C-alpha cells in the first residue's frame, strides 16, 4: 500500500522530538514506533483530519474547559487548563501534522449539548484548515447525534496500526525474527534500533501491526514448551518453578494487554518487582439512550499488605461489573462510579475475611488492599473516580491546549502539598511521598471515594494509570509529552508506549495504563 512505513521520512520522533537517523524503526529515546507513523496527509483522502495545529493557538481557543461543574468529594477541582502556551509540535514543519491523522473528531460532533454545536465548531481554532473535509466526511451525523468518528479506532486507509486484538500482536511477533529471551524477565533489549525487522523497502511486508518491541517478548515463553526461560535446561513444575534452577517462570499477569474497541490497557510487572500486583478491567456498554459508555478501571495492589495481587484483581473486576450493571440502567455515571468504588471496596474486604479465617496463626499480616482509579467516557461526559494514588490524566488531541491531571492523590505527598507544608517537588522527593492515605481494604480507616465529572469541549484521551507510570511523568505536561499524538486513534499502541516509557525510566514498580479516547465513539464504530 502506499502508506508503507517510511521511517526515513521523519527527521524527528513525532512523540518526543528526538532527532532520528535514517533507517530508524523506533525512536531511540522514547521507543516510539516509527513504522506506525502515518503516511503524509495527501494519502488520506477523506475523513482524516488532524487535530494538531501547526499554528499557534488563536485567542479564540479559550473555551471554558474543563467544565467541571463540581467535584464531589475532594473539593479540589482539577486544574483548569487553557490552550495557551503549550508549545505546538512543530518539528519537521509540515511533516508532523499527519502524525495524528484521523484523530480529530469533527468538533461539530462534540455533543455535550446539541445547542452548542455550531459555535463550538467555530471556536476550535485548529480545525480551520481541514474543517471542510471533516464536515463532509461526517455529515451523516450532523444532526447532533453522537458523531460516528469513523476514523477513530481503525485508522482510515489501512494505516499500520495496532488496532488488532492482543493475539494479533502476538502473532505478528511470532512471525518476526527470533529474539532470544533475555531471561526470566520480560525486559526488552534496550536497543530497539537493532530490532532486525525486514527493511521496509524490500518487498511488501504485511502492513498490519508491526511488532512492537514492547510487546514482542510476550510471545516467547507462552510457546507451549515447558522449559525454563532462565536456565533453558529444566522443565517447569506445576508450581511455576524450574525443576533445575528453581527460578520462577513468567506468569500470566507479568504482562497483560487488552484492547476493546476504543479503549485499551496494558499492564506490566516492571523491572524491579517480582510479580505484577496491578490489575485493570476495561469494557464498554451503552447508556439507556443508546449512547456508548466506555469504562476503564486500574488498581494497584498495596505491596505491604497480603495478597495485593488478589486485591487489585478483585477490585478492578468488581468496579467494572458494578458500572456495567448501573450504566445501562440510567444511573448517572458519576453516581455509578461512586457505587462501583464502594462495590470494589467490598470485594477487597471480602478477601480479608477469607484470609483471617484460614490463617489465624498469622495475625501480623495486613488485610489485602489496593488503590483504584476508574474512568467512564460517554460522548458527552468524562467521569473519573479514585481512591489512593493511582491517577487519571486528560491529554487533549490538540496539544496546543493544556493537559490536566484529573485526580488528587490520597497520599502523604499530596496532603503535604495541600496543607501548604511543602511544595510539590519537595513532597515528591521525600521517601514518604508514596505512603497512601486512602485505599480499598478491610483495614482502611474510612472509605472516601472521590469522583469528578468533566465535560471536555474537545477531543482527547484519558490516561488512567498507576504510579508505576506517573512516577516517570508526574506533571500533566510531562504525561502529555509521552502520550503519542495518535493516542485517541491507537489506544493500545499508546498504552504500550506509555508502559515502555516507565520501563525505560527504570520500571521500579508495576506499570498499568489504560487509554480511553474522548468522546466515546458510538457503538459499532470499532468494528468498522
Amino acid at each position, binding site marked *: 500500500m502506499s502508506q508503507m512505513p517510511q521511517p526515513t521520512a521523519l527527521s524527528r520522533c513525532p512523540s518526543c522530538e528526538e532527532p532520528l537517523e535514517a533507517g530508524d524503526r523506533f525512536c531511540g529515546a522514547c521507543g516510539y514506533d516509527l513504522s506506525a507513523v502515518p503516511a503524509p496527509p495527501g494519502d488520506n483522502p477523506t475523513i482524516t483530519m488532524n487535530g494538531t495545529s501547526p499554528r499557534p493557538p488563536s485567542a479564540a481557543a479559550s473555551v471554558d474547559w474543563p467544565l467541571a461543574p463540581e467535584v464531589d468529594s475532594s473539593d479540589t477541582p482539577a486544574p483548569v487548563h487553557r490552550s495557551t502556551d503549550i508549545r505546538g509540535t512543530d518539528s519537521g514543519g509540515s511533516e508532523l501534522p499527519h502524525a495524528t491523522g484521523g484523530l480529530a473528531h469533527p468538533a461539530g460532533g462534540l455533543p455535550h449539548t446539541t445547542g452548542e454545536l455550531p459555535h463550538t465548531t467555530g471556536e476550535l481554532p485548529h480545525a480551520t484548515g481541514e474543517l471542510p473535509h471533516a464536515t463532509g466526511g461526517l455529515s451523516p451525523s450532523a444532526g447532533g447525534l453522537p458523531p460516528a468518528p469513523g476514523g477513530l479506532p481503525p485508522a482510515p486507509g489501512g494505516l499500520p496500526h495496532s488496532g488488532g486484538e492482543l493475539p494479533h500482536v502476538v502473532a505478528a511477533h511470532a512471525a518476526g525474527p527470533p529474539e532470544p529471551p533475555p531471561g526470566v*524477565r520480560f525486559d526488552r533489549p534496550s536497543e530497539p534500533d537493532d530490532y532486525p525487522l525486514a527493511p521496509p523497502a524490500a518487498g511488501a511486508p504485511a502492513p498490519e501491526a508491526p511488532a512492537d518491541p514492547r510487546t514482542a517478548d510476550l510471545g516467547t515463553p507462552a510457546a507451549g514448551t515447558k522449559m525454563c526461560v532462565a536456565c533453558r535446561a529444566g522443565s517447569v513444575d506445576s508450581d511455576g518453578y*524450574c525443576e*533445575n534452577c*528453581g527460578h*520462577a517462570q513468567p506468569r500470566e499477569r507479568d504482562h497483560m494487554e487488552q484492547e476493546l474497541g476504543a479503549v485499551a490497557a496494558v499492564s506490566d510487572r516492571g*523491572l524491579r518487582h517480582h510479580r505484577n500486583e496491578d490489575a485493570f478491567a476495561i469494557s464498554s456498554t451503552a447508556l439507556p439512550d443508546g449512547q456508548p459508555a466506555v469504562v476503564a478501571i486500574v488498581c494497584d495492589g498495596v505491596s505491604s499488605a497480603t495478597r495485593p495481587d488478589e486485591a487489585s484483581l478483585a477490585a478492578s473486576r468488581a468496579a467494572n461489573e458494578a458500572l456495567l450493571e448501573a450504566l445501562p440502567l440510567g444511573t448517572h455515571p458519576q453516581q455509578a462510579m461512586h457505587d462501583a468504588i464502594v462495590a470494589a471496596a467490598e470485594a477487597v474486604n471480602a478477601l480479608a475475611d477469607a484470609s483471617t479465617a484460614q490463617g489465624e*496463626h498469622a495475625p501480623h499480616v495486613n488485610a489485602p488492599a489496593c488503590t483504584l482509579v476508574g474512568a467512564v467516557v460517554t460522548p458527552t461526559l468524562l467521569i473519573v473516580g479514585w481512591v489512593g494514588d493511582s491517577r487519571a490524566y486528560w491529554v487533549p488531541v490538540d496539544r496546543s491546549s493544556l493537559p490536566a491531571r484529573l485526580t488528587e492523590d490520597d497520599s502523604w505527598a499530596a496532603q503535604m502539598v495541600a496543607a501548604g507544608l511543602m511544595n510539590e517537588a519537595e513532597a515528591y522527593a521525600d521517601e514518604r511521598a508514596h505512603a497512601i492515605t486512602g485505599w480499598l481494604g478491610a483495614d482502611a480507616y474510612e472509605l472516601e471515594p472521590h469522583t469528578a465529572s468533566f465535560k471536555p469541549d474537545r477531543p482527547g484521551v484519558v490516561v488512567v494509570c498507576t504510579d508505576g507510570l506517573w512516577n516517570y511523568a508526574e506533571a500533566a505536561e510531562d504525561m502529555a509529552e509521552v502520550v503519542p499524538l495518535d493516542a485517541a486513534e491507537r489506544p493500545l499502541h499508546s498504552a504500550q508506549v506509555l508502559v515502555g516509557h516507565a520501563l525505560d525510566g527504570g520500571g521500579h514498580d508495576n506499570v498499568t495504563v489504560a487509554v480511553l479516547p474522548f468522546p466515546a465513539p458510538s457503538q459499532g464504530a470499532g468494528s468498522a
Partner: protein
Amino acid sequence: MANFSKSNVPQFSVDVYQNEYLPEGGREVNAIVTVSATGGGTIGSAVAAPHLYTAGQAPDAAVAIMVDCSGSMDYPPTKMRNARDATAAAIDTLRDGVHFAVIGGTHIAKEVYPGNGRLAVADTTTRDQAKQALRKLSAGGGTAIGTWLRLADRLLASADVSIRHGILLTDGRNEHESPQDLKAALDSCAGRFTCDARGVGTDWEVKEVTGIASALLGTADIVADPAALSADFTQMMETAMGKEVADVSLRLWTPVGTAIKFVKQVAPTVEELTDRRTEAGPRAGDYPTGSWGDESRDYHVCVEVPSAEVGREMLAARVSLVIPQGDGSVQNLGAQGLVRAVWTDDMVASTSINPQVAHYTGQAELAQVIQQGLDLRKAGDADGATAKLGRAVQLASASGNADTAKLLAKVVDVVDAAAGTVRLKAKVEEADEMTLETRSTKTVRVKK
C-alpha cells in the same frame, strides 16, 4: 509397610514460615517448616480410645524394653524394684496385638521375655507371663548398651510390622564397651527402629543417653527419682502406641547452584539433621524424622542461593514428606511446602525477620549456650559459664520458655532475667544440673 487403608493413619501437612524477601545480593534463605500429622493414633490409642480398634485389626507395632540390670542398679535396691515396676506398668500399657520383648542389659544382653529370639504378642496371658518374668531380673554385671541395642534390633526385625520402637533404661555409664562400639551399634540400628532413652539416678552420662535418643530419633530424659519411673514408662509407651507411621523422611529438593547450610528439628526439641542426609535422586535429599503419631514438629531449613538481581524470584527449596519403601522407591505423603527467595529493593521487606525464624534461632541458641555453659562450668571456667548461662536465662525469659527458665534457676541465681545477669550457684544438686543438660534442647513454640 504402613497400611494406608486404615482410617486412623494421620494426614500430613506442611506449612512454611519465612521472609522470602532478600536484599540485592542476599544469599541466605531461612524458613521454619512445620510438619503436622493429624487424625492419627495418639488421640485414639488402644488405652485411651479402645473403641477405635476393631477386632481383627492388629496394631502394626513391635516394642522392645531394655532394662539396665548392672550391679549398680542395687544401690539403692529400690532402683531395681522401681525399674521392675516401671517395666510392668509399660507392659500394661501395651495394646493387644502389639509384638513385644523385654531385654535385661548388663555387659551382655539377655532375653528376659519371651526368649528364644522371638517376640510375644500382647494379650492378657502374655502380659501376665512377662510380668512374672520380670521377677527374674536381678542386678549384677557391667554396662554395654551397644549389645542391648543390637539384640533389640534382631528381635524387632523378626516381626513384620511397620512401627518398631525401643525403650531403654540405664543408670550408669557405658563402661564395658568402647564408645566406638556403641557408635557402631547406633549406626547399625539407626533407621531400623526408634528408641526412647532414660537415665535413672545421677550416675549416668547425659551425652550418652541423649546421643542414643538422638541417633535413634527418640526422646531422652532424666528420671532422677526412681519412684517416678512407672509414670514415665507408661507415658512413653502410650506415645509409642500412638505412632502410626514409621520411617518418615523430610525430603528437601533444592535447585542447581544452591547449598543447604543446615536442617534441624527445632520443636519439640532441637535436633541437628544436616549430616543425616541421604541422597534421593538429583538435587534431593532425605532427612530422617522417625515415626509419627498425632503431632506437630518444626524444622529450620537454611539454604544458600546464588544471588540474583532485584525482581527475581526463585524456589529455594521444596519440602515434602516421603516414606522410603523396601524396593528403593518412596511413598510420597502428599503434603509439600515451598521455600522461596524473592529479591527486592524494599528495605523494609528484606530486613524484617520472620517471627518463627527469629524465635527458633533463639531456641537453638538457648540449647547451645546451656550446653556450653555447663561444659565450661565443669571445666572450672566460672566466668565463661556465667556468661553463657546468663545468656541462656535471657533467651529463655524472652522466648517464654518457662520450663527451661525454671531449670536454669536451679543452677544459677538470676539477678536480672531480661539483661541476662546471673551468678553461678555455689552448690548445685547434681540431679538439677543433669536435668538442665538433658532437657536443654526442649523448645517452646512461638508465643501467640
